[in-house]
C-alpha cells in the first residue's frame, strides 16, 4: 500500500499500458465466459432432456451425448460467423444509430473479392505453391480493402445526404443500396468467368482435424474441426482485439466514441464528424469484407444473394448482444450460433422426427431473442439508455 503512490508517480506510461491491455483483454475474457457459459447451459439442458427421454429410447441418451462436443464446435464456428458480420453492423449503428441493411451486401462483396483473388491465383498457378496462411492473409486484405472502400462510397452516396432526415429515411436508402449492390455484383460476376455461383478456390488446407472419437454403438462418432474453421475463429478474435484497441485506446477511437455520443458537440470539440463517420464505415465495411472472405473460404462458394440472410442474422446478433456494443455483438453472435446449432441438431432427435430441427432453428432463435429482450430490453451487454427529458 505504501509503495503504490510512489509507483504511479514513477511511471504513468506503464499504468496506461496496463489499462490498454485490460481494455483489450477484458472483452476477450467476457467472450470466453459467454462461450463457456452458453455451452454449459445448453449442454446441461440437452443432458437433462435426453435423460428424461431416454426411458423410451435408451440409444437416444447415448447419441445425444456423443454428438454434443461436435454440436458445440458447430455452434462456435457458426457463432463467429454471425459475430464477425455483427461487428460491422454495430460499429455503424453505434455512431449513426441506423440499421445499415446494405451491410450484408458489403459482406457478400468481400466474399466475391476473395473468390476473385482465389480464381486469379489459380489461373496463374500460384494456388498450389502458396502457403495457406499467406493466401488467407492476401485474400482477407483484398476483401477488407474493397469492402471498406465500398462501404465508404455507399455512405458518401446514399447516407450522407440524408443526415438529419427522419431515422427511417436512411433505412429505405440502405435497402435500395442493398438491391443495387446485389444486382451489380450479379452483373459483374456473370460477365466474368466466376459466374453466378462462384467457387472459392483455396489452397489445400488439409482434412479436418480429428479431436476425439466417441464410441457410439459399434462405431465411433468423431469430433472434428476443420483447419479453415480454426483460421476463421483466430482471425475473428484478432479482429475483435484490434477493434477494441482501436476504439478504446486510440485518438481515432476517442473521436469515434465522441461522435457516437453527440455529433454536434463532437464537432464543436474539433472532431471532423464527416471524416469520422466515413472512417467508421471504412472500418465496419472492412470488417464485413473480412468476414465475407472467411465465410467464402469456409463454405467454398459465394453468390450475389448470399449476404441477405446472414446480414439479418448478424443484425439480430448485434441487437441480442446490445447494439452499439462491440463485445456485445460478438457475444450475441456466439449465443445465436449456439442456439441454432443446438436446435437444428437436437430438435428432431428429441421429438422423434415430428419437428424438423433445421427448419425450426430460426423460430427457436427468434423466440429466445424475444425472451431475452423481454427481460433485458437493451440486450445482453447493452446499457440501459435513459431517455433524456
Amino acid at each position, binding site marked *: 500500500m505504501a509503495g503504490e503512490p510512489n509507483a504511479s508517480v514513477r511511471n504513468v506510461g506503464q499504468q496506461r499500458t496496463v489499462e490498454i491491455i485490460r481494455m483489450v483483454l477484458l472483452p476477450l475474457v467476457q467472450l470466453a465466459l459467454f462461450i463457456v457459459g452458453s455451452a454449459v447451459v445448453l449442454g446441461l439442458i440437452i443432458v437433462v432432456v435426453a435423460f428424461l427421454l431416454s426411458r423410451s429410447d435408451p440409444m437416444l441418451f447415448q447419441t445425444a451425448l456423443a454428438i454434443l462436443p461436435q454440436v458445440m464446435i458447430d455452434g462456435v464456428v457458426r457463432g463467429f460467423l454471425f459475430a464477425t458480420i455483427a461487428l460491422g453492423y454495430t460499429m455503424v449503428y453505434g455512431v449513426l*444509430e441506423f440499421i445499415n441493411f446494405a451491410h450484408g451486401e458489403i459482406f457478400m462483396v468481400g466474399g466475391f473479392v476473395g473468390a476473385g483473388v482465389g480464381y486469379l491465383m489459380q489461373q496463374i498457378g500460384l494456388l498450389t505453391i502458396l502457403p495457406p496462411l499467406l493466401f488467407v492473409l492476401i485474400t482477407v486484405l483484398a476483401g477488407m480493402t474493397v469492402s471498406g472502400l465500398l462501404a465508404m462510397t455507399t455512405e458518401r452516396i446514399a447516407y450522407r445526404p440524408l443526415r438529419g432526415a427522419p431515422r427511417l429515411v436512411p433505412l429505405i436508402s440502405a435497402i*435500395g443500396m442493398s438491391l443495387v449492390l446485389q444486382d451489380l455484383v450479379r452483373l459483374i460476376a456473370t460477365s466474368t468467368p466466376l459466374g453466378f455461383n462462384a467457387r472459392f478456390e483455396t489452397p489445400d488446407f488439409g482434412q479436418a482435424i480429428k479431436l476425439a472419437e466417441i464410441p457410439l454403438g459399434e462405431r465411433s462418432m468423431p469430433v472434428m474441426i476443420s483447419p479453415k474453421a480454426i483460421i476463421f475463429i483466430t482471425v475473428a478474435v484478432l479482429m475483435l482485439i484490434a477493434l477494441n484497441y482501436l476504439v478504446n485506446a486510440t485518438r481515432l477511437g476517442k473521436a469515434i466514441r465522441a461522435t457516437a455520443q453527440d455529433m454536434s458537440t463532437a464537432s464543436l470539440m474539433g472532431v471532423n464528424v464527416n471524416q469520422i463517420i466515413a472512417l467508421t464505415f471504412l472500418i465496419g465495411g472492412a470488417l464485413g469484407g473480412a468476414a465475407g472472405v472467411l465465410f467464402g473460404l469456409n463454405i467454398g462458394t459465394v453468390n450475389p444473394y448470399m449476404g441477405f440472410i446472414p446480414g439479418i442474422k448478424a443484425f439480430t446478433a448485434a*441487437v441480442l448482444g446490445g447494439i452499439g456494443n462491440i463485445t456485445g455483438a460478438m457475444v450475441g453472435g456466439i449465443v445465436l450460433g449456439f442456439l441454432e446449432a443446438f436446435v437444428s441438431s437436437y430438435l428432431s432427435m428429441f421429438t422423434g422426427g415430428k*419437428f424438423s430441427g433445421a427448419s425450426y432453428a430460426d423460430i427457436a432463435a*427468434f423466440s429466445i431473442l424475444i425472451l431475452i*429482450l423481454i427481460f433485458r430490453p437493451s440486450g445482453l451487454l447493452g446499457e440501459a439508455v435513459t431517455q433524456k427529458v
Partner: protein
Amino acid sequence: MTTPRPAPDPWTQLRARLSSGPGGYVFLSLYAALCTGLLLLNTRTSLLTDILFILFMLLALVVYRSQVALGFKLGLGGVLFGLVLPYFGVLNPYYIDVATQAGIYAVLALGLNVVVGFAGLLDLGYVAFYAVGAYLWSIFSTPQIANLFAGAAPIASGWFYAFILLGLAIGAGFGVLLGLPVLRLRGDYLAIVTLGFGEVIRVLAVNLDKPINLTNGAQGIKDIGRPPLPLADFVRGTLGWTLDDNQLYQLFFYLLVLVILLLTVTAVSRLKHSRVGRAWEAIREDETAAIAQGIPLVRMKLMAFAVGASFAGMMGVVFAAKQLFINPPTFDLLRSISILSMVILGGLGSIPGVILGAVLVTLLDLQILPRIATVLRDAQKAGLPIPAAFDPTQYQRLLFGLLLIVMMIFRPEGILPEQRRREALHANEDTGTPEA
C-alpha cells in the same frame, strides 16, 4: 422576414390557375375526358396504354390536390374509379389487376402507417398479419380444414364476407399478441423483434404441414374458395353484358378492394384526428412526455398494433380469395420491407401520401419497371450502346434500388409528406426564401 416576396414563377402561377376556380373545373374535366377517351381507344397493352394508365392513376392525385368543390372531386373520382376503370378492366384484364393489387397494397400501407407513422413503432414483420388472414381463409375454404377438424368440410364460400370481419378480428388479436412482449422495447430492438415475429409466422407456414397438415407447407394451398358472385345475374341478364366469370370476379375484387380502401381511409383518418390519434402522436414525439400527460402508454401502443394488424388480416382474406393460390414465399421479409418503403416513400404519417406510395411502388413493380426494361431492351437491339451482358429485363431490381436511393435523397420527407413533418425537416434548413 423582411425579404420581399418574390413574384411566383410561371409554373406556380399555372398550377394555381389549373387547380382552382373555373380553370380548375375545365382542366380537370378535360384531363379526365381525354384520359378516359384515349384509354378506351387503346385497350391493347402497349407503351402508350401504359403511359395513359399512369396518367389516369395520376388523375386521382391531381383531383385530390386541386382546390375545387368537394362534390365535384368526389363525383369525378367516383366516375373515374367506379365506372371508367372497371369498364376498361373488362376490355383489358391486366390493368385492372394492377389497380386491384395497388389497392390491396394501399390498404396494407395504411395499416402499417398506423403503427409506424402514427405511433412511431418500427414494425419490420407487418406481412405476418397479412399471412395470418390469407391462411385463415385458405384453410377454411379448402379441404385443408379436414386436417384441422376431422371430417369437416370446406366452409361455404358465402362465408367469405364473415371471414373478412373475422380476418379483421384475428389480425387485431395477433397484433396484440405481438404487442404485449415488446411494449418495453424501443427503436431498433422493437424492429428486430417484429422482424423475428414476421419470420416466425412465415417459417410456421412452411413447416406446419407436420405433424398435422395445416398449411400444406411449401407446396402452398390452391383452389381457394371465391365468394359467390353478387349481381352476376343482374349484370348478365338485366344489363345484358356478356361477361364470363373471370371478368366478373376481376370486377368484383376490384370494387371490393376499392370499397375496403375507402372504408380504411375513413377509419384511419378519423382515428388520426381522434383522441387516440393524438395520443399516438404524443407517444411518437416523446414517450416520457406522453406518460407525464397521463396517456395510457400500454393501451395506446397495443391499440396501434391491433389497428394496424387488423387491416392486414382483413386484406389477407381478400388476397387469398382473389389469388386462388398462396404459398409461404409470398409472405417473406422482403414484402414487409417493400410495404415499409411504400409508407416512407409516400410520406410517413400522411394518409394520401401513403396511398400514393403504395400505388407508385406497385405500379413500378408490376408495370413501369418491366416497361422500362422492355424499352431499354428494344433500344439495345436497335443498337444503343448497352453492353450485351446487361439485359435490362433482368435488372429491374437494380432500377428499383436506384429509384429508392434517388427519391430518398431528393425527397427525404416523402412525396406527399405530413405537414408537421415537412416543417420539422425544413426547420433547420438555411433557405433564404420563405416557403409558401
